């Protein structure tokens, strides 16, 4: 039997509340410490205890962009994990379980799957002070043994690499001992002949980071000093990160009473000159709608993060979907300009959040970051960000001195590019802002010609912005047999599906929309006209991007690959569908 080196898909699963997430993170960290790269995939239900949690870690030497459907090794804390995942274990793969917990005969396991019985509780009983929750560590140790990996990396991961102390905390040491016993048990009782082996490579400095953490980092780097938000899955970890960094990074996170309060506080702070942000998910964004329109009318810059989950309504709170694109493009009554950015991976979450603040202030309008659950909670191992080229641009924000020297200040002055010089309270040029239509001074004005002047001015900002908004990004050759169109987090799975197609000799390219609005109509129209076999790939029911493309270019994409079961795409699914399209 052929053995794969450093090509692994591993999963730990169990009841929520038993340390599944922690175990997954420690495993991923242990991989990075041995010079390997990871991409993780988390599934969890909307509850605190009970229910099924799983944490998948994909491991390779190259950088990874997505999870895959099948697992080589499943580490199961309970029977439920086995029942749910046994059909997704590779032929020749394995399951680690505790026969005292699970009657394996009731699980109808395929004969090609190898079983590793590890008595988790019995092992823990032999360690003084160990408690039931440490079963996850025993599983980790057992996994490392099956995979023939270096135990020291796991020990280092459990202890915490940032710890200056050679020894970890008392709890960490107990966990290391539990893991070691699990490791020893497997080494003693089973042969080292599993289908995958892990071998250390040269260790490189890697961050293990989720999209939400990257958004938080990007905002801090951009000088976002104030974030107000209301908890909502899967956006909450952004506000949690900000709260954790208040003192270190000298920022303020204010938990608001509801999303309406959150966005209005952020608006107030931004109006007063502080770079500000709010973060939420679809339902919370719906509540913010009226104030988003107010931002448009009073030309207050703001960055609004929408971490999507599948709707409608409460939908699937902890699952994946891309159903809010048209909503974000249209949210708010009346008409006003906005910029919509949909990062496709952890790196783009960081850089585009940074860019969003510059765009918001340069054009004095709301800028949306549209992320999703898959980006929000999936950890990816990446090198540190290069920040040397990142420059804060506050647009036409007046300095105190400039403001003091202005005569006859018009906050909403009609200008050619639509942008007016922006003063802030406390400066020596007072002005009024109104949600009513207003004249150049900000005074309420109901005259028809003024309405046209002001509305046209606001919309000219969009034309100005369009000149510097990046085009959709093309991956693959200019000319291809197959053209994939998509946006946001499907990027990772699509890039890998393209590799599979290439192995089959099919040349595919991929137009990825990070900047969805303002929309580069001409570029996209020309590109699509010159492409053959155009396929739209999205994680929603109604092919929203295809609809938007049709609206702006008149080009109708007939072939669509859509997934909306609340789970993210696996590359194999996209590959199968695209191959079908290619073969007609």
């Amino acid at each position, binding site marked *: 039997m052929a053995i794969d080196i450093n090509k692994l898909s591993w999963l730990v699963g169990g009841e929520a509340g038993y340390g599944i997430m922690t175990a997954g993170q420690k495993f991923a960290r242990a991989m990075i410490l041995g010079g390997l790269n990871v991409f993780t995939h988390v599934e969890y239900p909307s509850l605190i205890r009970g229910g099924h949690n799983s944490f998948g870690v994909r491991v390779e030497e190259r950088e990874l962009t997505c999870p895959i459907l099948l697992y080589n090794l499943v580490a199961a804390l309970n029977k439920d994990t086995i029942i749910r995942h046994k059909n997704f274990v590779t032929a020749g793969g394995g399951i680690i379980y505790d026969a005292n917990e699970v009657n394996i005969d009731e699980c109808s396991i395929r004969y090609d799957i190898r079983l590793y019985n590890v008595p988790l509780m019995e092992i823990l009983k032999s360690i003084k002070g160990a408690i039931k929750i440490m079963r996850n560590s025993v599983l980790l140790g057992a996994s490392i043994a099956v995979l023939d990996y270096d135990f020291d990396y796991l020990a280092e991961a459990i202890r915490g690499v940032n710890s200056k102390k050679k020894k970890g905390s008392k709890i960490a040491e107990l966990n290391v001992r539990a893991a070691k016993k699990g490791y020893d048990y497997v080494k003693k009782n089973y042969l080292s002949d599993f289908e995958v082996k892990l071998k250390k490579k040269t260790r490189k400095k890697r961050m293990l980071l989720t999209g939400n953490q990257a958004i938080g*980092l990007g905002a801090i*780097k951009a*000088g976002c000093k104030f974030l107000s938000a209301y908890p909502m899955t899967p956006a909450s970890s952004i506000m949690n990160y900000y709260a954790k960094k208040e003192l270190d990074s000298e920022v303020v996170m204010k938990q608001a009473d509801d999303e309406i309060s959150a966005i*209005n506080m952020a608006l*107030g702070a931004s109006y007063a*000159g*502080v770079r*500000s942000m709010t973060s939420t998910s679809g339902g919370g964004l719906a509540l913010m709608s009226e104030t988003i329109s107010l931002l448009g009318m009073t030309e207050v810059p703001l960055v609004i993060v929408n971490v999507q989950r599948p709707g409608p309504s409460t939908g699937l709170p902890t699952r994946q979907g891309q159903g809010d694109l048209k909503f974000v493009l249209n949210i708010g009554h009346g008409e006003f300009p906005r910029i919509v950015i949909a990062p496709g991976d952890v790196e783009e979450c960081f850089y585009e959040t940074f860019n969003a603040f510059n765009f918001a202030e340069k054009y004095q309008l709301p800028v949306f970051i549209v992320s999703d659950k898959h980006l929000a909670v999936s950890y990816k191992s990446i090198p*540190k960000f290069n920040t040397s080229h990142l420059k804060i641009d506050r647009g036409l924000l007046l300095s105190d001195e400039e403001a003091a020297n202005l005569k006859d200040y018009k906050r909403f002055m009609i200008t050619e590019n639509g942008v007016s010089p922006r003063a802030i*309270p406390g400066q020596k040029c007072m002005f009024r802002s109104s949600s009513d239509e207003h004249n150049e001074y900000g005074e309420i004005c109901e005259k028809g010609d003024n309405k046209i002047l002001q509305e046209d001015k606001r919309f000219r900002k969009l034309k100005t912005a369009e000149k510097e908004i990046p085009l959709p990004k093309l991956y693959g050759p200019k000319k291809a047999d197959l053209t994939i169109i998509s946006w946001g987090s499907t990027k990772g799975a699509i890039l890998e599906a393209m590799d599979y197609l290439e192995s089959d000799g099919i040349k595919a390219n991929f137009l990825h929309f990070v900047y969805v609005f303002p929309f580069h109509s001409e570029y996209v129209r020309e590109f699509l006209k010159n492409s053959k076999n155009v396929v739209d790939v999205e994680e929603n029911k109604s092919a929203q991007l295809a609809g938007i493309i049709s609206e702006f270019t008149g080009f109708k994409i007939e072939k669509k690959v859509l997934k909306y079961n609340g789970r993210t795409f696996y590359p194999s699914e996209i590959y199968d569908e695209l191959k079908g399209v290619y073969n007609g």
Partner: protein
Amino acid sequence: MVELKNLSTGNYTPDWCPGCGDYIILNALKRAIVKLNLNPNQVVVVSGIGCSSKLPQWINTFGYHGVHGRGLPVGTGIKIANKKLHVIVIGGDGDIYGEGMNHFIQSLRKNIDITLLVHDNQIYGLTKGQTSPTSMHGDKSVTSQIGNFDEPVNPIALAVAQKTSFIARSFAGDLEHLTNTIADAVSFKGFSFVDMFQPCVTFNKHNTYDWFKERVYDLQKKGYKPNNLERAFKKSIEFGDKIPIGVFFKEKKELYEETHPVLKKTPLVKQSLKNISIKKLMEEFC
């Protein structure tokens, strides 16, 4: 020295009905700013939607006229951004006690140094005469043709229940009392709240200037001391032949912006955005 004329918006003048209490409140607010000698460019008047919420348009300070009910969170954000500013939030009874009731109650429990002035006319004016959260039980309106079934909101009692640091009521029929109460509220270090009876001469034919003049009495003139929460509650539920105005309760508390370790150092808006390093933060993920 700031003078009344510095606060005027010249030919751009209010469009309220003749005789509206809002004129008197605007006048009192200007007088309070003069009395406290506040620099107009250090004052931000924030409002929601309604007749009273147009007020920031007609006073020569900074003004932000937002959407219905949301003046308080906007004002809170402004104060967090720049604690040096005097933030005054204006709203009507519909705006603050109806659409914005959640923000009202939540603001009562956050001790941020802003002032909330509520023009309480017990009716919706700008939408022409509908029942409001403070309309009296049984009062008729275009939307309560049979008579209002609901009990009115008691904003003073709500504030007392939250032990709000400054709770007062005044009356647009008494310019001097109004001016002094607003000045006391603005100069108080902490969240200050003034409910202001403001007769709507067009739509509220029940709670008129005369109706109030017969009933209101000044707590402080009766020797009431605003230092006891239970006494304040007792006074807050007095609403009938006699209606108290004045300061119900006053107590200094820890201020959010002077307690939060980041905010207490320097106003957020004055923090430099130059050379923000995330080296250490990235290291934490390694």
